[in-house]
């Protein structure tokens, strides 16, 4: 199901950027069509080879026994946490950095929220020998320090963004400004299926390796397609990657799990939405180069979003995902901070996998509709694939602190190691 024409997904998408960037975007459109869509000069072959050798693909599709028992159905995890760097982000970063190299660009810039995309870009740049600068909000720098160290160790510059709340939204704006200044020799590796065309389509194509593998693996393991596929959704790159090859399979339900944060209500006066649920609660607007669903006040000012997970903490969402939700192909749901933390601990304790806080949202939804406290009769079916988009090592500091503050019931007692944190 190709939903795209001319960079538009229904009413969404487009190219809302300063004129100075338009020639670079046209150049990128041309490169995307030639190298990615038509495999000119064997670009896609090289990309796939590097994903295998450098990235460690294919990742496994694992049946998780305790969760299957708990939810009384077959539950499989697509283990994107096993990709080099610890998240699905490398699929896109490697693709774009390689593309920049084919285009003759000398310098790479990127924004990052949780630091996973920045880390993946820094690794890809070291691997392919290109200069790399990453913009990261100061608030995110504080809550995702291990990734800041990893970027620096890979040789990237990390530029703190201090305006606003200092999260992903401000980091994207600042990276766009850098690009507008250095557009002639620089490629902007955007980290999600957001931004002006061709980014949403191109990032989806690089990420669709997730669903390509998962679709084949589940047919091999279970002899059929899944009843549903679950993925967390911030900007939506792991979501689109996990859904892309299933969108034509009309019997497979696709569920995008957003961050419900602490509440779905908005505070218009303060311009704050204490969640990142732009699919569930946002309205149509223009943000960072595209028309999509955004968290905004009635005037059109973009709200400050919130999620315990830095990688989901964004006021917009990819235009194609917004379109698929409007079209009824994808169902948008949300899971709040506390339930995500609880799901984080459950997977860590029962399956020996520490998930990223982002991915924990998808697991939290399974618990909400199929767990022991759920009402009877959910619609996820007997065979469920959850995209485990990343591993949680980067989140440990946040988890320990937040778990303590919120009194998450299933968390282990860490006081003896942290000195109480009071």
């Amino acid at each position, binding site marked *: 199901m190709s939903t795209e024409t001319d960079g538009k997904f229904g009413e969404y998408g487009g190219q*809302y950027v300063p*004129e*100075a960037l*338009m*020639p670079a975007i046209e150049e990128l459109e041309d490169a995307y069509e030639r190298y990615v869509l038509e495999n000119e000069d064997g670009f896609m072959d090289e990309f796939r080879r590097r994903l295998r050798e450098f990235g460690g693909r294919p990742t496994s599709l694992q049946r998780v026994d305790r969760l299957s028992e708990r939810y009384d159905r077959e539950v499989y995890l697509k283990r994107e946490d096993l990709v080099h760097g610890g998240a699905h982000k490398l699929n896109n970063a490697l693709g774009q950095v390689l593309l920049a190299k084919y285009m003759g660009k000398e310098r790479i810039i990127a924004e990052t929220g949780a630091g996973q995309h920045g880390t993946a870009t820094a690794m890809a740049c070291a691997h392919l020998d290109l200069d790399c600068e990453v913009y990261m909000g100061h608030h995110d720098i504080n809550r995702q320090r291990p990734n800041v160290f990893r970027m620096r160790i890979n040789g990237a510059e990390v530029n703190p963004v201090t305006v606003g709340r200092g999260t992903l939204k401000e980091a994207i704006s600042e990276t766009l400004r850098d690009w507008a200044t250095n557009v002639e020799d620089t490629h902007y590796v955007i980290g999600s299926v957001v931004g002006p065309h061709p980014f949403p389509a191109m990032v989806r194509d690089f990420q669709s390796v997730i669903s390509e593998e998962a679709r084949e693996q589940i047919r091999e393991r279970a002899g059929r397609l899944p009843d549903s596929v679950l993925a967390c959704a911030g900007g939506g790159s792991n979501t689109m990657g996990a859904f892309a090859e299933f969108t034509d399979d009309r019997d497979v339900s696709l569920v995008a799990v957003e961050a419900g944060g602490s509440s779905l209500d908005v505070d218009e006066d303060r311009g704050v939405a204490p969640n990142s649920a732009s699919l569930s609660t946002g309205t149509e*607007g223009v943000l960072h180069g595209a028309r999509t669903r955004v968290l*905004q006040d009635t005037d059109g000012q973009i709200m400050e979003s919130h999620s315990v997970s830095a990688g989901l903490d964004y006021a917009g969402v990819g235009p194609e995902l917004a379109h698929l939700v409007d079209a009824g192909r994808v169902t948008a749901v949300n899971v709040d901070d506390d339930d995500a933390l609880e799901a984080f601990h459950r997977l860590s304790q029962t399956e020996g996998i520490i998930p990223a806080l982002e991915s924990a949202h998808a697991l939290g939804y399974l618990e909400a509709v199929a767990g022991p406290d759920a009402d009877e009769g959910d619609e996820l079916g007997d065979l469920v694939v959850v995209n485990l988009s990343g591993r949680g090592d980067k989140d440990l500091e946040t988890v320990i602190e937040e778990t303590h503050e919120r009194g998450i019931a299933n968390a282990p007692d860490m006081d003896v190691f942290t000195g109480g944190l009071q």
Partner: protein
Amino acid sequence: MTRANSRALAEAFADGPAFVPYLVAGDPDCESSKAYVEALVRGGADVVELGLPFSEPIAEGPTIQSAIARALESGMTPERFFEFVADLDVDVPLVCMTYYNLVYQYGREETGEPGPEPFVRRAAEVGIEGFVVPDLPAEEAGPLRDACDEYGLDLVFVVAPTTRGERLERIMEQVSGYVYVQARLGTTGARSDVSRATDESLDRLREYDVPKAVGFGISTGDHAERIVAGGADGVIVGSALIDVVADGVENDDPTAEVAARLEEKARELKAGTRRGATASGARSERT
């Protein structure tokens, strides 16, 4: 002949090169901001670009970002902006500079769905003559262009140093009022020199019959002189003026004092454009 919807705007460029200052409306508060705009007009402004602050100003450098933050903090909204414009006591054309989402959302509660028409209608009501929307390239501008034509307002487009060939053609088909010649790559902000990219851009635009106003980085009367002597029909100055506003905020100076400094800075810039016109005139007579 390119389009010109607003007669006031056409006239402002008809009597020699125009000095076009930019301020963010409501920076640091509505009352001071009103005094500042009026001071710039006393200092010789021919057109004033008024920024309606948006939370994600992706084309702006640090100076204007801070001004936008101050204006938002003081409670500026699109509706207050229109009231602010209606209250201004000035006799030069006013151009609204903002980002597309604010244009797109205005009046949505009334109409049920977003679109630029209510914003343009309201702007026309309060006497705005045109718009600059830096995140709206010609490709996406159709609905706003139509609304501007319906209400007799102009839509100014930015031409960047990277804009060439077909892109330039496409923009020049849509532009009206004046073309905003971006003097250099990057974001807005005062600089200490004049970029060579400006001369090259002016050269590319020479054959088009529409006023060319140069902006991005102009901060002194000498810059203005050089740019007008190079063939520009106007100079747009924002950050260098906002620096004066920001200093006033920092030192807690009385509004009247800051206004007097702005008026003086405006006189310097206006005098520069006049000197540039003399040089440019002398040169055209020779050729």
